[in-house]
């Protein structure tokens, strides 16, 4: 448990969070390698099944990163994503997983520092929560 390195899947919107991750790289800002980024055309494109499958395949935490309020390239995909995340958090609770393992965050394309900060904070949060009970069972 002491050496536990969480696996975190981040669904990042192409127009904001993914670009912010690039920005973090260009600025040489370090963030934990635990975070595995999946680029999506809009955070609103993320489906509940993508999230549950990530947990099924062994993720300890998942977050969906969309644009800031009112900044969605497709009008309101980020707000839809936020609703979906709440819906899936309830589903995770029903399944018996801590809903805190899933989070919605909002980042603009220029916020490389915020991307790195969020990646670090979420990694630490999941580290404290411990390994996903699914992985423990599967292993």
């Amino acid at each position, binding site marked *: 448990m002491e050496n536990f390195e969480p696996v975190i899947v981040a669904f990042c919107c192409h127009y904001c969070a993914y670009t912010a991750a690039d920005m973090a790289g260009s600025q040489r800002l370090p963030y934990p390698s635990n975070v595995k980024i999946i680029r999506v055309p809009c955070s609103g494109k993320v489906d509940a099944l993508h999230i549950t499958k990530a947990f099924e395949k062994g993720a300890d935490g998942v977050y969906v990163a969309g644009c800031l309020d009112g900044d969605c390239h497709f009008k309101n995909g980020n707000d839809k994503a936020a609703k979906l995340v709440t819906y899936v958090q309830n*589903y995770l609770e029903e399944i*018996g997983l801590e809903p805190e393992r899933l989070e919605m965050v909002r980042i603009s394309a220029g916020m490389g520092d915020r991307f790195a900060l969020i990646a670090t904070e979420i990694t630490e949060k999941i580290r404290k929560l411990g390994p996903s009970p699914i992985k423990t069972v599967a292993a």
Partner: protein
Amino acid sequence: MITAERKPLEEIIEYIKPFKRILLLGCNECVTVCAAGGRKEVGLLASGLQLALLKSGSSIEIREHTLERQCDPEYVEELVPMIGSEEAILSMACGCGVQQLATRFKDKPVFPALNTKFMGGSLSQGVWDERCKGCGDCLLGLTGGICPIAKCAKQLMNGPCGGSTDGKCEISDDVECAWQLIWNRLKALGQEDRFLDIMPAKDWRSGGGGGPRKIIREDLAE
């Protein structure tokens, strides 16, 4: 359409716990439209069940499939080649589909994953309301297109009752008084006179009071 909602995961798990291989079966009709039992919901339930079972240390093989319609024998017949090795069927159709499966596959346990709710329509995305009780003797032509059987809590044939205040029903401020709606509508149509006609007590034999109902179209039936 027929609306439905998924049962609590705990109840579904109780049904399928004794089995190692199940078929999780969706339906492409009403339950797809009301986002309860279509292909997408089949995937999400299968994933949720896997997670919940893995967490409790057990596992199950779930085969996912969605039929065009579960309430028609022609479509259910498609399952015959694939059903052999499945120990049970978990259906995400309405009660009609579940019963169709139970009738066709007599040696397979069939379980419902949904609670069938009501016949309704969509108010806006993600919101459905009840519109029809299937009473078998439609009154909508007399009531301005608003059903007092489905929308009045007391199913009054002549309303409103004393519980109607400012257009709301006494059971909740969220429920509109059906008879107020009927009055408004008749007025808009210039048919206020119709409101004075006393409607006789309803004969519920056509609404299920005479036992299970059946329709036989002699020209179509074989």
